[in-house]
Each structure stands twice: as structure tokens, then as C-alpha cells.
């Protein structure tokens, strides 16, 4: 299905990532934003509020974060594509209802413009420290999808992609951006509606008396109905069966086949399996020069653009350095990292936190390749020199690292002649 022309504000703009994401959400058919605006995501909510009426969409500023995310779940059950926009401590406050949304299998997205630090942190400055919270923030087991754009143009495109994935898999999708991309201004091209692919909501079309809210299609996702359409549905945060009725047997099976063999009624297993078993269709990465690489830099969001500067310099000097950018940070491309780990010397992982995705890379490297974290406490981006120094350190190291922390920024930068980036062409 193509986008509705009424939702797409075709044109060429010079706007920041926040605003681009608002345009993208609208283009995807989002009709509801329930939010409690917070820096550095405010521009996205402002832009949405300004443009939304022209697309027949609504913005409600709720009383707080709990109300915001709850209103999103309600709007989505009412049949509309819905989202919230948030950051930092507000995101934390939403976790309970994210888990509820995952358990009820409600399609929705959250735009999270990450700021620096824990708690209130540094409101106007960047961070990438919500990576693990995005996946594990709510209680219990469920899987989500998270996308990390690296430019305002991708902010637009990934907002559409996020809604499409949410509808496709009936799960929360995090548009996990950061302040740098949110506040970066670049040219953004919003194409014609006929050029934008939209995943329509998969509505149930069978007879009302045969409807079971959690009966699966072969791809493990169940069709959905609108609240108020006359179907008898029962929705709860309690673990439930195909009818949606509570059952008290969650967690007795170790995978979907086992659950089926045991004739388990709980549908909890599907919350993880519908993502895990479809991961090949979901995972997107972007690789450059990895074929013959000795070192692969794994990064996402703004850090991938900063890393580019270091990689460019290293390659100019003849070092074989490749890049792997995570477009979907979750699900994580485990198989690909395992493959690469068998033939590279190591991975360099710059991220604006003190170590999150690096542990995933290290886990998948299985001790076969060194993994080095280039940490950053946030509020600004890495010095490309530091990433460059980490690449050099890895290339020249003869030992197997004991942990991912064996890179000491200031020390190594001096050893490998950092601080001497060549002028750009």
C-alpha cells in the first residue's frame, strides 16, 4: 500500500532531525501523538502539533509520561497509528506501559531523542545510553525493534519504517535517535506519497463469532480488530491465551515448538518468538569494506558518522578497516558478527555510553576476535582521533584482550599520534 497523499508533505526542506521524524510519522499515517514534550525532542512534538491538523492527526499534551504512553496504547486499539515522542527520564517513566503494549501486542512507536547521562542528565546534549533500556526497560520477557537513524533524512525514512515494522509485527518499535541527529539540520527530501510504501494494519476479516484476538497467522503475528467494531475481545496485561483470557502457566516452555508440544495455552512465548524467528526479515545493517578488513568498526546513530572520519584517515594510511552500521540495533545481527569474528583481528565499538552494544559484539565474537570499546560519557560526540587510536591499538596488539575496556583514550591517543587529523579535502 502507498501513503495517503493527505499525510505526505512533499517537498525539499532544510530541517532538523526532530522535525524530519515528525514529517515521517505523519507520512506513515500516524494520526495520534500523546506526549509530554521534553528536551531535546521538543521540536518533534512542536512540528507534529503544527502540521498534524492538515493530515487529520491529533496531538494531545497529556498530564504526564504515564498518561502519554497510555493514551498511545488506547489510540492504537482504537484503530489509529499512534506514537509518543520522548527523552531521558521521561522514557524511563514509560517502561511499565511499554511492557503492557508489548504484552497486548499493540502496534506503536516511540521516538526517543537520547540525551546525556542518567536521570535528568544533560538535557540539551547528546547520549546513546538508552540502548539496553530500550530492549529490557519494561518488566518481563518481550522483544522490541529499535532503529537508529544517522541523519535527518533517515529520521524521516526510519519513522516510516518504524511504523511499518510496528504494524507488521504488532510490537513496540523504538526510533532510537540521539540529540545530535535530532538537532542536526540538513536537507530532507519528502517524496511523493506514491513513492512511500506503507504497511497497512492487518485487520481481521473473518466472521465475528470465530474471532480470537491472539490466534496467529503462520508468521506468528495475529490479525487485529478495532475496539468498538463489534468483536468480542478481552484484553489484559495478565498472561493470556488465544482468546485473551488470563492463564497461569507462563514460562513453562523453552521455545515455541516445546510450548506447542506441551499444548501450552499462554501466548507469552510469541512475544519473543515473533521477532526472533522473523529476525532475518527485520535486521538491517550497512557494511562497507568488510570483505578484507582486519578491523571492523561497529557503530550506530551519530557515532557512525563520527567514526567515518577516523576510518577515512586509517584507510588513507593503508590500514584495512571496514565499517558495520546497525540500522536495526535490535534485533542485533548476531550471525553476521559471528561470521566476521572468524576472520578479523577485532572490532572497535564507539558508542556514547560506557558500554552497551559492545557487550553484544563481544558476546558474538566468542573470544575469537578482540573487541574494544571507545566509551564516551555523553554531552558531545567522540573525538575521531580516539576512534582512530583504538583502530591502531587493535591492529598492533598481539595479545588477546581480557575485556572490552582495554582502550585508554588519552594514553592511546598520544601513542598513536592522535590529535593530528589531516585537513579535509
Amino acid at each position, binding site marked *: 500500500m502507498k501513503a495517503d497523499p493527505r499525510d505526505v508533505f512533499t517537498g525539499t526542506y532544510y530541517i532538523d532531525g526532530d522535525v524530519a521524524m515528525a514529517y515521517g510519522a505523519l507520512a506513515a499515517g500516524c494520526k495520534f501523538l500523546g506526549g509530554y514534550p521534553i528536551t531535546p525532542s521538543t521540536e518533534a512534538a512542536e512540528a507534529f502539533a503544527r502540521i498534524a491538523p492538515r493530515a487529520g492527526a491529533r496531538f494531545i499534551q497529556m498530564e504526564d509520561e504515564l498518561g502519554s504512553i497510555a493514551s498511545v496504547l488506547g489510540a492504537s486499539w482504537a484503530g489509529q497509528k499512534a506514537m509518543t515522542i520522548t527523552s531521558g527520564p521521561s522514557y524511563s517513566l514509560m517502561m511499565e506501559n511499554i511492557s503492557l503494549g508489548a504484552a497486548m501486542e499493540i502496534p506503536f512507536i516511540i521516538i526517543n531523542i537520547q540525551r546525556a547521562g542518567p536521570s535528568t542528565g544533560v538535557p540539551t546534549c547528546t547520549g546513546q545510553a538508552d540502548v539496553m533500556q530500550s530492549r529490557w526497560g519494561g518488566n518481563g520477557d518481550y522483544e522490541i525493534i529499535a532503529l537508529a537513524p544517522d541523519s535527518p533524512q533517515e529520521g524521516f525514512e526510519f519513522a516510516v519504517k518504524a511504523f511499518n515494522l510496528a504494524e507488521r509485527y504488532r510490537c513496540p518499535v523504538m526510533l532510537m535517535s540521539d540529540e*545530535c541527529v535530532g538537532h542536526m*539540520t540538513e536537507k530532507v527530501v519528502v517524496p511523493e506519497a506514491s513513492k512511500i510504501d506503507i504497511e497497512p494494519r492487518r485487520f481481521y476479516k473473518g466472521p465475528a463469532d470465530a474471532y480470537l484476538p491472539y490466534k496467529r497467522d503462520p508468521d506468528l503475528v495475529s490479525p487485529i480488530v478495532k475496539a468498538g467494531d463489534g468483536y468480542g475481545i478481552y484484553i489484559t496485561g495478565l498472561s493470556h491465551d488465544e482468546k485473551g483470557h488470563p492463564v497461569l502457566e507462563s514460562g513453562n516452555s523453552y521455545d515455541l515448538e516445546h510450548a506447542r508440544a506441551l499444548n501450552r495455552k499462554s501466548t507469552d512465548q510469541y512475544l519473543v518468538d515473533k521477532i526472533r524467528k522473523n529476525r532475518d526479515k527485520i535486521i538491517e545493517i550497512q557494511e562497507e569494506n568488510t570483505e578484507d578488513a582486519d578491523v571492523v568498526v561497529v557503530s550506530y546513530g*551519530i557515532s557512525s*558518522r*563520527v567514526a*567515518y572520519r577516523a576510518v*577515512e584517515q586509517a584507510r588513507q594510511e593503508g590500514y584495512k578497516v571496514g565499517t558495520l552500521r546497525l540500522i536495526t540495533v535490535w534485533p542485533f545481527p548476531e550471525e553476521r558478527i559471528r561470521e566476521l569474528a572468524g576472520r578479523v583481528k577485532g572490532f572497535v565499538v564507539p558508542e556514547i555510553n560506557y558500554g552497551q552494544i559492545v557487550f553484544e559484539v563481544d558476546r558474538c565474537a566468542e573470544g575469537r576476535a578482540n573487541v574494544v570499546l571507545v566509551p564516551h560519557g555523553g554531552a558531545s560526540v567522540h573525538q575521531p582521533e580516539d576512534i582512530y587510536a583504538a583502530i591502531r591499538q587493535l591492529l598492533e596488539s598481539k595479545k588477546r584482550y581480557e575485556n572490552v575496556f582495554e582502550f585508554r583514550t588519552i594514553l592511546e591517543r598520544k601513542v598513536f599520534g592522535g590529535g593530528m587529523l589531516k*585537513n*579535509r579535502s
Partner: protein
Amino acid sequence: MLEIRFAGFGGQGIIRSGIIVGRAASIYDNKYSTMNQAFGPEARGGACSSQLLISDKKILYPYITRSDYLVAMSQEGYSKFESEVKDDGVLIIDDDLVNTDSTKKVLKIPSTRIAEELGHRIFANVVMLGYVIRVTKAVSLEAMRKAIPESVPERFVDKNLKAFEKGYEYA
């Protein structure tokens, strides 16, 4: 690749300056440009800067390495970013607001005073832009004349264009 830093206080239109030139470059001159902003939690008055990159090629690393130009409209902005300017780079300052002891090339324009003569100091950044564009040739004059009306409130378009021409003439 042209790298320009604008620095001043919140409320002076520092970030807006970056947006106007960036828009002129990427929308009307068909180049690539990336504008990044830095500001504090204050609504107005805090230190504020924007960095603008303009290139004929796609910009991957989106930040300044060494700036070709520093446009400083506050003493603090000057002090903070003077060392970032290339040895053969140029500082452009509002000389009523900034004292300089730099050994690098310095160009001066009393942009705030000129803006006040035009009616309001709020136009100081656009006066400065007129000067900056003539000196740096970062974007074409036509592109600026198209980008300014798109970037300011409708009722102030004429005043802003006039402020721009004033700065341009001053250079």
C-alpha cells in the same frame, strides 16, 4: 569543504544564521550542508554556537575539524573558538562586542550598531550575514535572497533583506 562557526549568545540569532546560510547552500545552490547547534538550558542569554559545513560532496563527518571562518558576536564565543580557526582562517567579529588579540586575520563590522540604526538590534545577525557572505562567498547572493524570506517571520522579510544588503555593502 567550507567550515564556518557562528558564536554568540542565545537570542542573537546565532543558530538562525547557520540555518539561513545552510538553507541557501543546500536548497538554492544545490550543495550539501550540515548545520549543528549547541546551546545551554537557558531560554536566552546563554552561550550558543552553530557550526556550518558546506561541501560539493556528501558530508559524512558532520562536525568542524578546523574552521575556515569564526563569526563571533560575543567575547565568550570568540575566546572559546578562536583556537579552532585554521592558521590561515579568518575571524569576523562585531567589534562593538568583541575585543581581539588574535594573531590570525580579523575582519570587523559593528553589526549590532548598524542594526540599531535600521530600527532594532534583532537584525544584527542578518547584517552580519551580509558581511559574511560577501567576504566568504560561501553561497551565492541569489541563494541568500531566496533563503532569507523563508527563514524569518513574514512581516519582517523586508527589514531582514534590507539588513542583509546593509551588511553586504559594508563589506
